[in-house]
């Protein structure tokens, strides 16, 4: 699966570096220096919602080729590019080791689809990436979600945090004090976050932000108060925050109640992907999708059930600055 990398030039590096800088700026909208003259319009965070019923065949199984096309369109729309490889080159640089953080807690029924991961891996390789690591909390989580553990070798590897363990030193931010997994700190140069669109019995929803509970040694300590402010604090841990580049939420099958465990009675075929560089904007949009589905199904809003995902608002506050949850500053693009 490996490809030959073109020789890197200063010009290509600068071009890629500039693009990457733009991407990171979206995560830190408060970081821009003041300039004279009228205040510029604040940067808007784009969230692409890409849906296509054709990703399912007549017998409702997943059509991998159609899913790959949907992914391509979503990436092109996210980065205003005319080809998916061009878009991916705005996310990663050749030679980087790229981690794909999947979410497999729910097992086969509501985990990040391996077909999606395969499509992403293929495009990453076409963009010059030779080392890809698919990772999650535990090897057993990955296996239950149909992933095969590959701990050694080059190319694409796949393993849980139990393979390499956690840093000895604590990372701290706000109320969080955690050891971050070595897969993220020592192996990966960049991470693509691949959560699932689903409800959570304590946090309200679990999307891009909460998925980083899978990168630390003590997520069990952070479920009080509907996980607020812990989700935002964990995401803001420096080793995590600085390596996340893009969030692609798997909404092929979505779940609006009973999560994070797989509850087939509350799944629905959303047939889509949510793509964003801003995790807060993605979570906000995903949360509203789940709330709408709950309302359509005659269920109470999450707030009434005391699992209002206020951690999304916390993630956007001045202390965290992980992104925006202001609808006026979210550019929602549906394709």
């Amino acid at each position: 699966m490996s490809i030959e990398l073109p020789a890197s030039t200063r010009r290509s590096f600068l071009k890629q570096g500039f693009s990457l800088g733009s991407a990171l700026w979206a995560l830190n909208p408060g970081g821009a220096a003041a300039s004279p003259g009228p205040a510029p319009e604040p940067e808007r965070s784009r969230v692409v919602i890409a849906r296509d019923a054709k990703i399912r065949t007549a017998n409702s199984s997943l059509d991998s080729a159609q899913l790959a096309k949907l992914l391509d369109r979503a990436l092109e729309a996210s980065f205003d590019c005319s080809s998916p490889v061009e878009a991916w080159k705005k996310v990663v640089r050749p030679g980087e080791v790229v981690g794909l953080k999947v979410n497999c807690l729910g097992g086969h029924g509501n985990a990040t689809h391996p077909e999606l991961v395969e499509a992403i891996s293929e495009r990453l390789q076409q963009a010059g990436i030779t080392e890809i690591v698919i990772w999650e909390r535990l090897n057993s989580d990955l296996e239950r979600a149909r992933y095969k553990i590959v701990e050694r070798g080059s190319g694409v590897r796949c393993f849980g945090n139990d393979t390499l363990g956690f840093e000895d030193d604590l990372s701290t931010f706000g109320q969080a004090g955690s050891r971050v997994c070595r897969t993220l700190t020592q192996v990966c140069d960049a991470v693509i976050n691949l959560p699932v669109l689903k409800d959570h019995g304590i946090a309200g929803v679990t999307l891009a932000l909460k998925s980083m509970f899978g990168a630390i040694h003590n997520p069990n300590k952070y479920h009080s108060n509907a996980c607020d402010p812990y989700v935002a604090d964990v995401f803001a841990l420096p080793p995590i925050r600085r390596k996340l580049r893009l969030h692609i939420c798997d909404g092929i099958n979505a779940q609006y109640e009973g999560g994070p465990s797989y509850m087939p009675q509350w799944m629905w075929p959303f047939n889509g992907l949510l793509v964003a560089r801003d995790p807060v904007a993605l979570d906000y949009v995903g949360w509203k999708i789940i709330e709408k589905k709950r309302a359509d199904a005659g269920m109470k809003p999450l707030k009434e059930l005391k699992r209002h995902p206020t951690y999304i608002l916390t993630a956007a506050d001045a202390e965290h600055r992980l992104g925006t949850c202001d609808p006026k500053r979210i550019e929602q693009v549906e394709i």
Partner: protein
Amino acid sequence: MARGRDDLLNTVDRRAFLKAASLPCLAACSGALVGAPLAAPLFAGPLVAPAVENDAQFIREAKFYEKLPYKKIKCKLCPRECVIDDQERGYCGVRENRGGTYYTLVHSRVVTAHIDPIEKKPFFHFLPGAEAFSVATAGCNVNCKMCQNWDISQVRPEQVRSTYVPPDRLTALARQNNCPVIAYTYSEPVIFLEYVLDCAQAVRAAGVRSVVVSGGYIQTDPLNQLCARVDAIKIDLKAYSEKFYKEVVNGELKPVLEALVTLRKNGTWNEIVYLVVPTLNDGDSEFRGLARWIKSELGPDVPLHFSRFHPEYLLKNLPPTPLETLERAKAIADAEGLHYVYIGNVPGHPAESTYCPHCRRKVVERTGYTIAGIHLHHGKCQYCQTPIPGVWT
């Protein structure tokens, strides 16, 4: 699991055990001073353990929980009452829902074993000078920002190296090392309660006593069962304010106070440690409120230890407790009428010793963890015959 570690815990003589034993000498959660290690590390190494021989040997169905619809469970061990989805764990990190059945993952899963003087726990009115064979598993049901042992209490069992020590083996180890007491300590025995209950039953039959060092964040039913099996329980009362419990401990004060009353009702010997953290729980009104509550609800004879804090874990920004603060706390508690108020983690301080509340003479002389003299006769002051409460023989 490395064969070497098994060999070490199979040792039968004290010298071999001491050579083998445990993580670097661990202080109790109360923040007791970490002294010179008694022994070389047994489980030193990377955070993640190599694959153990048989993970299943540590797993037992939990005793205290109820099943809920959709394979969820509600834990009934501590007041937190975690509601846990399939494949998830509770706050403690050592109990897991597997298909709607709740399991402890730490039965007989010992992460540290050590021989400590019982004064280190501290117990000052329980077999002075006795050596306590002290064990812990990973995990805790709170997350104190000043935890001295966070590297075992705030991790999951598979993240630290451990060894299989079932109750009969623990009993044998205590006896082989001439320890009259086993202490369940270092992390939080509440979260390995099934193991404590089984061990306490086994060692009692062998003439060995059991003591527990706990934060006391436990429900009444499991606590009553614990009281029936063990000989003494020391409670780390982290503060006398709900605010501190919420912000620093990630727990609640009220259930801990209720647990202390339950201990009293059960007649289980109890001592209380209060770790004095500068600026966070060191106010006069707090000391006074605590002393008054103890006197009115538990009586004046419950030993109360004010211990010095040392910067650790998430509170490295604070200084050690000034001695004057500890002495002020003791003076307030003395003035409120408590009979046995100690100062801890200050080796050589006069308030390490026990004084007869009637004649004011020293009845147990201590320097650090060393007993310099015991002046009791059948549990009474040898000078004035005043009964001194405790377990002395």
